[in-house]
């Protein structure tokens, strides 16, 4: 009966215009299946927190419908929606102990005392909070507060769990640790979850599916590896990955019986037959790990891209090189969506053993993985081509 389950979250045509005229969301459709963990990711101001607040009932939508667990909740106040939420700053009640905080949602639902005790003990055990039940939030570390906030959200087994950047107030090491705990906890409880973050690494590692939001619109929804492999837009391409996909100005040309692709001074011969997309300018995307330095010194073949090294970051297991292409990085002909997404430099990911270029040096590189072609105006995906040989 999979697929017919009534649970999960259904959002249809959700639109939010704030009183001052700013558009938070424009007509958004999204479905989260029961038991699924969906990560909502995007740059700050993209509307992801607005979406979460609309689902929680903390804001009223301008238009559209929200269904949770098969029940229409669009007009209902937060307390009638059976959702739980973890806030970025945790919002623990300062006047209550950890036990009091965990118990609060149960007390609001008039659960009998014995049942409350049992549930609090259960969730405390689940999150390793047994020793902290008598403390107040002010006496807890950041990681402990985060766990209490999670416990308070899970204790009443909500139909939907909303997480608003729950890990962003923690230091890097703890963030990685709690990220893993969060994933395990969600698997164990099976609660339908929407996790909002601006951290693409969190999105890639955590989500069953990832929804990328930009300027109040959904750019793409899908499993993380699909988004990484086949980004639907130039924005998604450049946003996911660390660093994201490089975007370079290019041009497709028909030539003889085949086609060629020119990228920033380099010229690559495609195959026979018609070009994979209409002739003309394109934005060419290539992952940092798919750019390899040419072996040997000059003279370089016409197919090599020559880049001026600007900065070198040695990370131990690999080295990141940031370099500048000849000519404009993001030409004026590109649309706002593509230009805004394009990183200012071209990134290369080199193995630690490889020869390390120095800043100021010019390196010749050649693509060793797929090239993604995006329309230069709106940034939608046109095609992917294999690297030239």
């Amino acid at each position, binding site marked *: 009966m999979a697929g017919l389950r009534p649970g999960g979250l259904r959002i249809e045509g959700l639109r939010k215009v704030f009183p001052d005229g700013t558009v938070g969301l424009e007509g958004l459709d999204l479905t989260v299946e029961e038991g699924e963990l969906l990560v909502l990711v995007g740059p700050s101001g993209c509307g992801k927190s607005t979406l979460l607040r609309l689902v929680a009932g*903390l804001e009223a939508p301008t238009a559209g419908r929200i269904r949770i667990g098969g029940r229409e909740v669009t007009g209902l*106040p*937060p307390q009638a929606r059976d959702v739980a939420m973890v806030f970025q700053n945790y*919002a623990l009640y300062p006047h209550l102990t950890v036990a009091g905080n965990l118990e609060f949602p149960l007390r*609001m*639902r008039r659960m009998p005392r014995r049942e409350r005790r049992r549930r609090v003990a259960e969730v405390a055990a689940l999150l390793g909070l047994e020793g902290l039940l008598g403390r107040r939030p002010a006496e807890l570390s950041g990681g402990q507060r985060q766990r209490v906030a999670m416990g*308070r959200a899970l204790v009443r087994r909500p139909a939907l769990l909303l997480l608003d950047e729950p890990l962003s107030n923690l230091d890097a090491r703890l963030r990685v640790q709690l990220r893993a705990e969060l994933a395990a906890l969600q698997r164990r409880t099976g609660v339908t979850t929407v996790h909002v973050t601006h951290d693409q690494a969190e999105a890639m590692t955590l989500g069953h599916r990832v929804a990328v939001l930009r300027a109040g619109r959904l750019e793409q929804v899908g499993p993380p590896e699909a988004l990484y492999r086949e980004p639907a837009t130039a924005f998604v391409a450049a946003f996911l990955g660390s660093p994201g996909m490089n975007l370079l100005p290019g041009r497709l040309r028909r030539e003889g019986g085949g086609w060629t692709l020119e990228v920033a001074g380099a010229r690559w011969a495609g195959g026979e037959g018609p070009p994979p997309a209409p002739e003309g300018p394109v934005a060419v995307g290539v992952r940092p790990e798919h750019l390899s330095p040419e072996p040997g010194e000059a003279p370089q073949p016409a197919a090599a891209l020559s880049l001026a090294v600007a900065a070198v970051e040695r990370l131990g297991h690999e080295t990141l090189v940031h370099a500048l292409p000849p000519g404009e990085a993001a030409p004026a002909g590109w649309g706002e969506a593509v230009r805004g997404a394009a990183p200012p430099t071209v990134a290369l990911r080199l193995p630690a053993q490889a020869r390390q270029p120095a800043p100021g040096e010019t390196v010749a590189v050649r693509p060793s993985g797929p090239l993604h072609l995006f329309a230069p105006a709106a940034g939608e995906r046109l095609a992917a081509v294999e690297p030239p040989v």
Partner: protein
Amino acid sequence: MRRRAPLAGALLWAFALVYLAPVAFMVVGSLKPDALVLREAGSLAAFWPEGASLQNFRDVLRRVDFPRYLLNSLIVTGATVALGLVVNGLAGYALARLRWRGRRAALALVLALLVIPFEAIAVPLFYLVSLLGWRDTYTVQVLPFVANAFAVYLFYSFFLDLPRELEEAARVDGAGVLRTFWSVVLPNARPVLATVAVTTFLFQWGSFLWPLLVTTSEAVRPLPVALAVFQTLPPRQWGDILAFGVMMVAPVVLLYLLFQPAFLRGARLAGPKG
């Protein structure tokens, strides 16, 4: 520590003496035989408790029904404080947090009320309560002072600074608006509750003009009016009058000692952040 100029130090001591001398005079005088109080009033001996006894206090309790006045004051002040916390707290919360038509206008009106002294409206108010037939009751001493613009303003500015996520968390956790106010907002508003309680208490405890206008019988008369009447009762015994004053001030001092930590917390809270 900053070193003060000697002149400034001397001035400060002089001011302190000016403020403390009457209090010391009252306390010492209340313990002395009546004859001595007037005779020594002009000399430093007024501050030396010669022949100290509690006789004046016994006399006060014998001559008038002091416990009755004390109870009246406690009832009037207590009711004003309790009702004031609820009414002004809810008003401040509504102004700071809820969205409703006319909110800005209501806020402007409340702030405008801050500048109107009570004395300016005392006579029209007296006329109004007379029409209502409320004279000489507890109600007439309490009701006009429950809603207070300054208290509303204190609550309003405190609630503005309270993190909004706390209330949002409570809403998501299943509490309605009133429940959120009661279970989450109020417990975290102790400093402002204490401040409003104390200022209301002090105002009502010392209130004189209004109760003088509206009370006529001993049954509802509060301490300040009772003291004024006591001064006119023959024989005019200054030691007794001072003893009456000490008994009237004692609860205020007690309150200050009890609430001092809350007072300080409130002052810190109102001060600059960080």
